[in-house]
């Protein structure tokens, strides 16, 4: 019995010894760790590839990591938020970060990034960007303006676009305008001849003479588009010297006055802010509205696939077109608005470098072109212009012309909240509760009582 036991013990020891020797002798394979990164994204029919590109980037990054010999692998989990707009989504995300449950990466509208930075939720990216120039040096320099906060870069631009006033040429023809006038509208806007009030007059004639119900439509929820009208009246909302929010009462009143006039003449529907997005798009693309204050990506997302607008350039411009945001007075400067969406990293992420590399891969030119071409957004890198798919997408080329006069929303941490106040006042003006001047006073009152450091002139 004792012999059996000794024999068993000896066998066991031999096995252990042999095994461990084998382990030590063989090449040390790195232990594979999977780094899980959660990406917060908004459900958005005009941008499904924004999160999808990050998921694809994870594969590319994993291949790169394997080639480097690192044991880390990245896995991306996408959390889709049902918020109806980027502003609501940013507010929700701020709340989520506030209770300590924030994601690792997130997709946001650029003007909110400094709100995240101010509260310490976003990661400062300057050093990481400098460390990995291969992903980031070819991004258009102007786009970096949209991700800079007071002390550095906090986001990576994901796309850009241009916003304009679409218009329906067929309706204008029905209203009695001749082709020369219609075709000259874009050029006249750029040169400063066509003003905001002219747009109201054209729309007025359309609803009176043609079979259209609406004159000018704009988005029903909070967003950047209607700010174009404010910018036409000289509201830039930012004090260039101090970087603080600037409100100028009379310029605000003038801008609200334009909306007031539009509603009084029946050109802008009083319930524009409570209509559904689908209803608004349907109204314009089925020929029931003259102007649609929106952006270029709507063509690829809705106009072509859902409403069957002609996809070729000549066919499109036969019956449809767009003008930049007209100036307020004759001889003024026309404008446009570009609203880049950005990728950002949470401050408390465990492996920041890995996260930045992932986003770098997500910003690869080919992935970005996929997004740009399918949803008609503008790309972020100069080499995309050489991509035949990009070059072949004529809306992008034509929209690029607007980039010369385009503005960004100010990157002030409180601008998002200010936009909310402006939207509420806009709703008040359109529904007839406030006059233009009262709306300006409302914005000033609300801003000074709920925001900090607002300069009022």
């Amino acid at each position: 019995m004792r012999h059996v036991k000794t024999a068993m013990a000896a066998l066991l020891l031999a096995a252990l010894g042999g095994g461990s020797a084998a382990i030590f002798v063989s090449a040390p394979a790195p232990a594979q760790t999977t780094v899980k990164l959660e990406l917060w994204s908004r459900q958005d029919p005009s941008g499904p590839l924004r999160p999808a590109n990050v998921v694809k980037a994870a594969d590319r990054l994993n291949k790169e990591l394997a080639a480097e010999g690192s044991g880390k692998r990245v896995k991306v989990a996408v959390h889709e938020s049902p918020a109806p707009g980027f502003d609501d989504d940013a507010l929700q995300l701020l709340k989520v970060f506030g209770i300590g449950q924030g994601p690792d990466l997130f997709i946001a509208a650029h003007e909110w990034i400094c709100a995240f930075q101010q509260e310490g939720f976003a990661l400062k990216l300057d050093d990481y960007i400098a460390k990995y120039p291969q992903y980031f040096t070819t991004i258009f320099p102007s786009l970096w303006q949209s991700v800079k906060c007071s002390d550095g870069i906090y986001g990576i631009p994901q796309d850009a676009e241009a916003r304009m006033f679409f218009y329906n040429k067929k309706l204008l023809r029905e209203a009695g305008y001749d082709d020369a006038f219609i075709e000259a509208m874009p050029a006249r806007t750029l040169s400063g001849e066509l003003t905001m009030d002219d747009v109201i007059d054209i729309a007025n004639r359309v609803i009176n003479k043609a079979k259209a119900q609406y004159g000018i439509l704009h988005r029903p929820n909070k967003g950047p588009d209607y700010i174009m009208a404010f910018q036409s009246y000289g509201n830039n909302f930012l004090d260039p010297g101090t970087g603080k929010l600037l409100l100028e009462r009379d310029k605000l009143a003038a801008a609200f006055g334009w909306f007031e006039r539009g509603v009084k003449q029946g050109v802008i529907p009083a319930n524009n802010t409570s209509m559904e997005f689908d209803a608004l798009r349907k109204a314009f693309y089925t020929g029931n509205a003259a102007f649609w204050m929106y952006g270029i990506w709507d063509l690829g997302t809705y106009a072509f696939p859902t409403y069957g607008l002609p996809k070729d350039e000549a066919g499109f411009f036969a019956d449809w077109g767009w003008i930049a945001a007209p100036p307020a007075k004759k001889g003024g400067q026309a404008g446009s608005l570009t609203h880049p969406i950005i990728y950002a990293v949470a401050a408390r992420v465990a492996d920041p470098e890995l996260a930045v590399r992932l986003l770098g891969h997500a910003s690869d030119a080919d992935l970005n072109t996929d997004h740009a071409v399918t949803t008609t957004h503008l790309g972020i890198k100069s080499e995309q212009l050489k991509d035949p798919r990009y070059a072949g997408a004529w809306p992008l080329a034509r929209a690029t012309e607007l980039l010369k006069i385009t503005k960004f929303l100010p990157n002030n941490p409180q601008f998002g909240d200010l936009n909310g106040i402006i939207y509420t006042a806009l709703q008040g003006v359109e529904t007839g509760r406030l006059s233009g001047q009262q709306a300006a006073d409302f914005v000033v009152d609300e801003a000074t009582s709920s925001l900090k450091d607002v300069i009022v002139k």
Partner: protein
Amino acid sequence: MSAVTDLAVERRYRAASAVRRRTNFVLFLGPAIALTFLFFVIPVLIDIAVSFTDLDRTLRISKFTTEQYQKVFRGDSRLPQVIGLTVVYVFGTLAIFNVTFGLVLALTTTSLNKVSGGFFRGVWLLPRMSPSVLYILLWLWVINPSDVGLLNQFLMPALGLARPLDLMTSAPVALIIIANGFIGASLGMIIFTAAIRGIPEHLFYAAEVDGAGTLAKIRFITLPALRWPISFVTIYQTLSLLVSFEYILLLTKGGPFYDTTVFALYVYRRAFTSGQYGYGAALALFLIVIGAAAALLGWRFFDFKRLLQHPRIEVH
């Protein structure tokens, strides 16, 4: 010897009874007291405390200040409009629907036979019993400002309108009064029905014999019997209308602009939409005080002696 043991037994019994009394207290009332303290008393204290801070979206308190109250009394230009709207809404809904229409429903359904009366009462309880999200969804579809909305399908041919009606923009206050009224009428209806059923039948027969018509019967028999239930419903429904904003939030979100933002919804908007938790707490304190006062007022309706029925068993 037996006297001593009897005494000991009795002492032991009383000690055990005292222990049982204490454990009974903890067992029966303990959970209720704990939950009530934790979720009623402490939040009120928190509310008072937070209303003196500048708590905002960051959920971090940086200073203690009375600026929230200064804002309430001096700085807020929305507040007068909100308070005015709240008064209109509460009294409008109460007067038109909760009390009056509830009374009408109770009177009419009790005049029918039991089955039909029960059927109509059941229909009117449906809004209260269905989930709020669903009820408001139905409202949104009914008032849809296009040809699809049920209301427009009726009213456009009936009134000969060219364009569909948009109640949400043109008559939002009426809209919230009606939407909440349908819900409120049902509670009054139940209470008044129960009270009417409690009126002895012979009174009605005697009145009929004396030549009373329907209206006279209502005036002289039914209404006096409903005096207490009507006051009861008035006070309680006033309180309930003052603080509930769920249906309004779902239906109009307080819009357009601030047109349907009643006081309770205003607190919610300030705190959760704008992130001004400190200001919201200050505003909420006023509601809490009003709520407590009205609840105290409701004492009058309760026969406290009957509530305090003295227990007849002393054993534990």
